[in-house]
C-alpha cells in the first residue's frame, strides 16, 4: 500500500516538475509571440 501511494505521489511530482520545466522553456508552438519587434505582418 505504501509503495502504491509512493508511486502515485511520485507520478504527480514528476508531472508537475515536467510541466514547470516545459512551461518555463516555453515550448508552445505559438511562436508568433516570439516575433522580433522589427518584424511587420
Amino acid at each position: 500500500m505504501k509503495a502504491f501511494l509512493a508511486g502515485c505521489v511520485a507520478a504527480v511530482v514528476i508531472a508537475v516538475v515536467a510541466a514547470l520545466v516545459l512551461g518555463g522553456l516555453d515550448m508552445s508552438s505559438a511562436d508568433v509571440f516570439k516575433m522580433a519587434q522589427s518584424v511587420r505582418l
Partner: protein
Amino acid sequence: MRLTGLCARFLGLGVVGLAFLLIGGIADLGQSWTNQALAQSGGSVRPPASAKKWAPTQPGKISPKGEDAQTFGGAGDVPKTVGRQPSQPRMWRDIRRGVQGRVSIPNQRAGYLIQSQGYAWQQLRNTKVFKFGAWLLAGTVAVLFLFFVYRRRIPIDGGESGRTIERFDNLERFAHWLTAVSFVILGLTGLAMLYGRAVLIPILGKAGFAWLLMMGKYAHNYLGFAFIVGIVLMVVIWLRQNLPDKYDIPWLLKGGGLITKGHPAARKFNAGQKMIFWSVVVIGGIIAYTGVMLMFPETETLADKQGHQYWHAVLALIMIAVIIAHIYIGSLGMKGAFQAMGTGHVDENWAKQHHSVWVAEVTGKDDKAPAGGAAE
C-alpha cells in the same frame, strides 16, 4: 554480492541508453514506412471523396457562374465569409501540392497553407485505427471473460501454507506502481482523445467533454514523463532477471500452465512475465519516444508528426490490451498473485507452484513445487 548487484544495475543503465537509441531508430523506420503509405494513398493531392467538407454546402451569395466564379482549384463549396477574389486555380493547385510560401514568423513551416497528406492521415486515424482499437480491446475483454468461464480463478494447489516469502522489495513495487498508475491515466486519457467524440459527448455534452479533454491533455502530456521514469527504473531493476533462460521454452510449450494442468518451473520471472516486461520496455519505449516527439511541434514536419501520431496510437492500443490481460491474471485470474505487488510477500505454496526455481534459489532449499506455475 552487493558489488555484483551494483555492477548489474550500471549495466542495466547502459542497456537502457542503448535501448532508447534502438527504439528511436525503430520508431523512425516505422515512421518512414507510414509516411510512404500516406504518400501513396491515392497519389492525388485532392482530398478523398469521403473527406469532410468544412465549407457550407450552400455557396452563399457568391454566384458560381460568370466571371467571378470561385473555383479554388479543388472540391468544396465557397464559405460565406470569403469575399470576391480573382480566380486563382493554379495558385491553389500548387498550394495543394505542397508549395511553400514565405512567412515572417519564426516557424517557417507555417508557410505551408495546405498539407494534402493530412486528409489521408485523418481518414486513417478516424476509420482504421478507430475500428482496430475498438475490436482489439473488446476482443481482449471477451477472450479474458471466456478464459475465466473455462478456467475460473486459478487456485493455490494445496491451499495457503500460512508462511510467506518476500517476492518484491519496496523499490521494485514503487517502480511497478509508478509505471502502472501513470500508464492507466495515460491510457484512459488517450482513449478519450480517440473515442471521446463518439462515446463521451453523448454523456457529458460538448462543453463537459471539452473541459475533460483539456484536463486530460495536460495529464497525458506531463504524466508521460512519469511513465518514462518508471520504464527506466524497471529496466535498471529487472533487466537481468528478464533475460531468456532454459526454463522459458518448456514454460511456453506447456502454455504456462494456463490451459493445461501441471505447472512448469520458472525462476523469478516466467516466460509470460518476461514477454510483458519486454512489451513494456520496447512498445512502451516507442510510445514514449513518439509521444515526446509529438510534444515539440517545431522539431519535425507535419508528415513526421502524422507518422508519429499513427504509431503512438496503434502501439498504445496494443499495449492497453496487453496490460488488461496482465491486470486480469495478476488479480481476478489467479489467487495469491496480487499480494506480490500489494504487500510484496506471497504465500510459500503459491511461490513454489509458480516460481519453483526462484524459491529454491532464494531459500537455498531444492523443494519440489506442489504442482508448478502459470503466468501472472
